[in-house]
């Protein structure tokens, strides 16, 4: 799964880039989008990583409450799978064992694993390798409830402007509003798992997604930040109930190498 996700860019991302190509105003911008599509083609044909940064392996598990796992530790098994995939698949090992000592672990472990328990007897595993460039431009802010939807919009626009060319645009914005600080960040990341351009089920939030997408692209940063109208492919918003005193907002950016692979056991 680690290998496949790094070699094959999802059809949804390809479709979104092609759509951007139709409306892109800058010639350089158009050429860049074409190069990105060509890159995805080469990666698929040669089974080579589309990007050299094959990411921190983020894994979302949905564990059916009737599932009983035998024969060992599930998290260790996932870790072993990551080590195997990154070694046999010639993927880059980008993880250091301590954030300050910075010694490479040599096999891209450990992954970051989030588990939710759901009814049923299936185990769903979603693997999404997350590159450093786009992750580094992400941000969380604790707004005041009085800041309201305008405050949220301003913060997202501020994060986009500050990110500029760094996260390899065209990018996708995952926005988490509400919950606690870490919950906002988590639902922002979950928003990136949606098919690119799939709207929020909440019509009010879907409207905000649309407005933000337009405003971000109208800043003129364009593909790779070199000027143009295709900076963002989509804005995805997730919300969660909030404390009476808080309005947390998290913005998680994903680059055009928006990789995810899903399996249900």
């Amino acid at each position: 799964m680690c290998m496949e996700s790094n070699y094959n860019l999802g059809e949804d991302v390809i479709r979104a880039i092609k759509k951007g190509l139709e409306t892109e105003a800058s010639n350089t911008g158009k050429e860049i989008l074409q190069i990105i599509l060509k890159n995805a083609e080469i990666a698929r044909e040669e089974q080579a990583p589309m990007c050299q940064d094959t990411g921190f392996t983020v894994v979302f598990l949905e564990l059916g409450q009737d599932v009983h796992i035998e024969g060992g530790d599930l998290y260790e098994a996932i870790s072993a799978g990551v080590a195997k995939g990154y070694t046999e698949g010639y993927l880059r090992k980008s993880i250091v064992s301590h954030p300050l000592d910075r010694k490479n672990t040599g096999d891209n472990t450990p992954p970051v694993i989030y588990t939710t328990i759901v009814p049923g007897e299936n185990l769903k595993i979603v693997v999404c390798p997350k590159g450093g460039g786009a992750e580094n431009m992400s941000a969380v802010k604790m707004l005041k409830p009085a800041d309201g939807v305008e405050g949220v919009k301003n913060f997202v626009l501020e994060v986009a402007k500050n990110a500029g060319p760094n996260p390899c645009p065209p990018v996708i914005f995952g926005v988490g509003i509400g919950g606690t600080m870490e919950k906002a960040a988590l639902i922002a990341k979950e928003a990136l798992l949606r098919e690119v351009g799939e709207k929020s089920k909440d019509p009010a939030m879907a409207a905000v997604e649309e407005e933000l997408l337009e405003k971000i692209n109208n800043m003129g940063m364009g593909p790779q930040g070199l000027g143009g109208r295709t900076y963002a492919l989509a804005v995805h918003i997730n919300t969660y109930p909030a404390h009476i005193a808080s309005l947390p907002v998290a913005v998680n950016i994903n680059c055009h190498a928006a990789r995810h692979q899903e399996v249900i056991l």
Partner: protein
Amino acid sequence: MTPIKLTTPLADADVEKLRIGQQVLISGVIYTGRDAAHKRMVDLIKEGKENELPFNPKGQIIYYVGPSPTKPGKVVGSCGPTTSYRMDPYAPELHRLGLKASIGKGKRSPEVIDAMKEYKAVYFAAIGGAAALIAKSIKSAKVIAYPDLGAEAVHEFVVEDFPMVVVNDTLGGDLYQEGMRIYAVK
């Protein structure tokens, strides 16, 4: 736009003619380095041991990249640019010694832009994430220093028509600012 073809080592006159927004195809030898290699190189310069640098920066280009491992039968793994700002603290020292260009992605600090003006150097953006495609323009690759750094070791690449765009020129121009100004909807 027809891209400009350049061969390394770069002549001063060719570098000074470059302007922001131009597409360039580079051929010849280029060197790679990320944060860890830069730190070692600049430490050497500070200790006055310039002759111990992995390569003489004069007229050369450094590419900010940490390739993925090479598959058997291939020249190099996927190798797109990494974000350049992490090299900003080190870049002016290398430009002072004659480094003519760096290749990466993302904005540079005012200090680096000033150093490029002063020492007549440029900054190119390669396409972030187009790593499998970029690998095709790399004809040979070898590690020449710091093998202990793994993907961060200094490599010598021989490239042919490696595609990039001029982001900062020797006049202090900045395509990230300029491009945004042109395409912003007011």
